[in-house]
C-alpha cells in the first residue's frame, strides 16, 4: 500500500512493538504527529521539555528491556534530546530518538530551527541517520531498532526531513529482525574454568551487563555453584537480592566496606558485564594488581580498556553463563566466607545510621509497595539510595551511572512508571530536582504513580562534600539559597506535597505518601529537610586504591 513517510514511520514503530512514545511536537514533526493522531494505536506522553522525553524513554527502556522511543522537532527540540541520548549511551540503554528536520530544499541554508543533529550526536549514539529519501525510511527504522537492541545496547537517532514525511511510497509490512547471540563453546572457557577452580578467594563483580542480558538468575546459579561472593556496580544494582548471603552490596567509590575489603583479600576477580569505570576501578593500574582477572563482556572494546585482564571472553553474558555453569565444579568456601563475614560485621558496625537521609531512604525501602521502581538523580542522594534502598529484582532500578546526569530522575521516573505499570520512587536532591522539576506537571497530567523523596539540604551536597575534602571548605557556588516552598510548588501543579523535617515524621509521612500515590495513581512530593552536612561514606578518593577507603570524613 502507498503511505506517506510519517505513516510509514508510525507503522514501522508498530511493527517493532512500540506502545509508548515520549515526545514534544513542533514544526518539522507536524506530519509525524498527524499520523500518530490518525493512527491512534501508540500512546504518546507529552513532556514539559524534550530532555524529559529522552530521559523518560531511557527509564522506560531500563525497566522493560525494550527499546525506548522519543520524538522531538528540529533545532532546539533535537538539541534538547542530546543530554538524554548521551545518558543512554553511557549506560548502554536501547533507545531510538526520532527528530524532524527542515525539508530538503531548506537543508544547509541555516533555515529556521535547522541544526545538524546527526553531526552533534555522532559521539553519543551507536549510529545515526538522516533520511532524505522516503524509500529508505522503513529500512532505516528497522535497522535502527536492530542496532539499538543488539550487541552492547545503546541509542540510535533518526533525523527525518520534513519532505520525506509527506512524500509517498510503497510500504510493505515486515516482522522485526531478532538478533541471536553466538553460542559460546565449552572449549573457549577451558582456561576460565581452570582459573575459577584454582582460585581460593574469588569475587564476582556484576555490572549492568547482567541486567541488560537478562542474566540475573544465571548469575545467582553460577555464584551459588562456585560459592562466590557477589559485589555489584551501580549499574548492576538489582542483579542479586540484597539480603542474599552471597551479596556484598555495591562496589566502587561509595561501595560497602565489605565489598572493598573482600576485593582487597580476593585472589581472583570475575568481572561480568562491567567496564571497570573510574568510579569502580578508581586506580585502574592497581585495582587488580597481582589478582587473576576474568573479564566477560559483549563489547570487544572494553577488554583491556581500563583494567588489563588475565583471561577474557567476548560474548553475551547469558550465553557465556549458560555454557560456563555446567563446566565449573561446585565449591564450598567456608574459610573465605568466614573472612568475608568478619568484614560485613565491621561494615555494619561502622555504618553511619545517624543521618536523617539514612532513616528516610531505608524506611522508604521497607514501606514502598513491592515491585516499585527505584529511580535516582545524581549526587549524594543517589549514593545513599544505592547504599540504603534494597533493590531485589533486575529492571527495578534506574540511575544515570556513566554520564551522571543531574536532572535525569524526573523524566526517568515517569518513563519507568509507564514501562512497569507500577509506582516509581524517585530519590532526588534539591539541585537535581531544580533542573527538571517542570516534569512534575507531566506526572500530574499523565496520572503517574510517583513518590518523590526530595533530599532538601539547600546545597549541592556532593560537590560540597568534595569541597570539604579537597578544597578546605571553600563552598564556591554550592549554597543554593533558594526561597522555594516545595510543598506549595507540588500543590500548585496539582501534585500532593508533604514534608519530613524530623525523624519522627519519617514513618507516618512516607506511609501517607505511598498510600496516596498508589490509591490515586498520582505524584506525591515529599520535601525531606536534611542537614547540609550529611556525608556519603564510605568513600575512596578518585584514583586511590581500595585500602584507602575512608570510613569517616577527612577534611582538608
Amino acid at each position: 500500500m502507498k503511505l506517506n513517510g510519517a505513516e510509514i514511520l508510525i507503522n514501522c514503530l508498530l511493527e517493532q512493538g512500540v506502545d509508548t512514545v515520549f515526545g514534544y511536537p513542533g514544526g518539522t514533526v507536524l506530519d509525524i504527529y498527524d499520523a500518530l493522531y490518525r493512527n491512534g494505536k501508540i500512546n504518546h506522553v507529552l513532556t514539559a521539555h524534550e530532555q524529559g522525553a529522552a530521559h523518560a524513554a531511557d527509564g522506560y527502556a531500563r525497566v522493560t528491556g525494550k527499546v525506548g522511543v522519543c520524538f522531538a522537532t528540529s533545532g532546539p527540540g533535537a538539541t534538547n534530546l542530546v543530554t538524554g541520548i548521551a545518558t543512554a549511551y553511557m549506560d548502554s540503554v536501547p533507545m531510538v530518538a526520532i527528530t524532524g528536520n527542515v525539508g530538503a530544499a531548506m537543508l544547509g541554508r541555516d533555515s529556521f530551527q535547522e541544526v545538524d543533529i546527526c553531526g552533534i550526536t555522532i559521539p553519543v549514539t551507536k549510529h545515526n541517520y538522516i533520511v532524505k529519501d522516503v524509500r529508505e525510511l522503513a529500512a532505516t527504522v528497522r535497522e535502527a531498532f536492530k542496532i539499538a537492541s543488539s550487541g552492547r545496547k545503546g541509542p540510535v537517532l533518526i533525523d527525518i526531513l520534513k519532505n520525506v514525511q509527506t512524500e509517498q511510497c510503497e510500504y510493505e509490512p515486515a516482522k522485526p529482525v531478532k538478533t541471536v547471540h553466538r553460542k559460546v563453546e565449552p572449549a573457549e572457557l577451558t582456561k576460565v574454568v581452570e582459573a575459577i577452580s584454582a582460585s581460593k578467594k574469588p569475587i564476582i563483580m556484576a555490572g549492568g551487563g547482567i541486567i541488560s542480558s537478562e542474566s540475573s538468575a544465571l548469575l545467582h546459579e553460577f555464584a551459588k555453584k562456585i560459592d562466590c561472593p557477589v559485589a555489584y556496580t551501580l549499574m548492576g544494582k538489582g542483579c542479586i537480592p540484597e539480603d542474599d548471603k552471597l551479596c556484598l552490596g555495591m562496589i566502587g567509590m561509595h561501595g560497602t566496606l565489605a565489598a572493598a575489603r573482600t576485593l582487597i583479600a580476593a585472589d581472583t576477580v570475575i568481572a561480568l558485564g562491567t567496564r571497570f569505570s573510574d568510579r569502580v576501578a578508581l586506580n585502574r593500574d592497581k585495582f587488580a594488581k597481582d589478582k587473576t582477572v576474568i573479564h566477560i563482556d559483549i563489547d570487544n572494546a572494553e577488554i583491556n580498556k581500563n583494567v588489563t585482564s588475565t583471561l577474557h571472553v567476548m560474548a553475551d553474558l547469558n550465553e557465556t553463563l549458560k555454557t560456563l555453569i555446567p563446566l565449573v565444579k561446585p565449591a564450598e568456601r567456608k574459610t573465605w566466607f568466614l573472612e568475608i563475614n568478619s568484614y560485613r560485621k565491621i561494615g555494619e558496625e561502622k555504618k553511619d545510621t545517624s543521618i536523617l537521609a539514612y532513616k528516610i531512604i531505608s524506611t522508604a525501602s521497607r514501606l514502598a509497595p513491592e515491585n516499585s521502581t527505584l529511580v535516582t538523580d545524581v549526587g549524594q542522594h543517589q549514593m545513599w539510595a544505592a547504599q540504603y534502598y534494597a533493590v531485589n529484582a533486575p529492571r527495578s532500578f534506574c540511575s544515570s551511572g556513566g554520564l551522571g546526569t543531574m536532572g535525569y530522575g524526573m523524566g526517568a521516573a515517569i518513563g519507568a512508571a509507564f514501562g512497569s505499570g507500577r509506582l516509581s520512587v524517585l530519590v532526588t536532591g534539591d539541585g537535581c530536582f531544580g533542573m527538571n522539576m517542570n516534569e512534575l506537571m507531566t506526572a500530574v497530567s499523565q496520572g503517574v504513580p510517583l513518590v518523590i523523596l526530595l533530599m532538601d539540604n539547600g546545597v549541592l551536597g556532593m560537590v560540597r562534600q568534595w569541597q570539604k575534602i579537597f578544597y578546605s571548605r571553600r563552598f564556591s557556588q554550592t549554597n543554593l539559597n533558594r526561597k522555594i516552598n516545595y510543598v506549595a510548588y507540588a500543590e500548585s501543579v496539582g501534585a500532593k506535597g508533604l514534608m519530613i523535617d524530623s525523624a519522627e515524621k519519617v514513618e507516618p509521612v512516607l506511609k501517607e505518601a505511598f498510600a496516596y500515590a498508589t490509591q490515586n495513581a498520582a505524584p506525591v512530593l515529599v520535601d525531606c529537610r536534611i542537614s547540609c552536612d550529611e556525608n556519603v561514606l564510605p568513600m575512596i578518593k578518585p584514583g586511590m586504591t581500595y585500602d584507602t577507603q575512608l570510613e569517616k570524613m577527612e577534611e582538608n
Partner: protein
Amino acid sequence: MAEFKKYTIGALVSNKSGVLTRISGLFARRGYNIDSLCVCATEDPNISRMTIILVGDEYMLYQMIRQMDKLEDVKKIGCANELDCVYRDLMLVKVSAAPEIRNQIVEIKDIYKAKVVDLSIDTMILEITGDPEKLDAFVRVLEPYGILEMQRTGVTVLARGKHTLKDRDCYGDEEI
C-alpha cells in the same frame, strides 16, 4: 610510557557521506593522532577502503581498532603490521629549478626513479611512488633546492599473497 610506533590500520567502510567524520571523531576524542589517511572507493561501489597510519603504542592501536569495529559503517578492519604487506605512497613535489641547477635535480630524479611531470622556466614538478621511507628520503634530498609545495596521497597498503581485508573473520550477532 611505551615506545610509540607507526601502525597501519586498514578498513573497509560504507561509501557514504559522514563516515570519515565518524572515524576521525573517534581519534580526536581520544587525542590520538592520524599520521596519514587515505580513502577511496573500491571495486565495490558501496565500499570504500581506508588506510590510516596511527602513531602510538599497542594499547592505542587495539583501542582504535576495537572502537572503529563498533561503528556500523565499518565492515572489516585489521592492522597491516601483522602481515607481510606492500606499502605505497604517491607524491607530487614542486621544486625551484632554475636552468643552471635543473640537471642536478634530474640526476636525483633518475636515482629515485621519479618522473618529471611539469617544467616551467624555474620550477619543476616531480612525481614519485614508493614506500613512505623512500619518499621521505627523496624529500630530504630535494630540500636544499627549495621545495615550493608538495602533496602526498598517504600510504596505501595491500597484503601480499591471498590475504584480503574482506575475507577477514568478523565477530558479530547472527540474524534470524
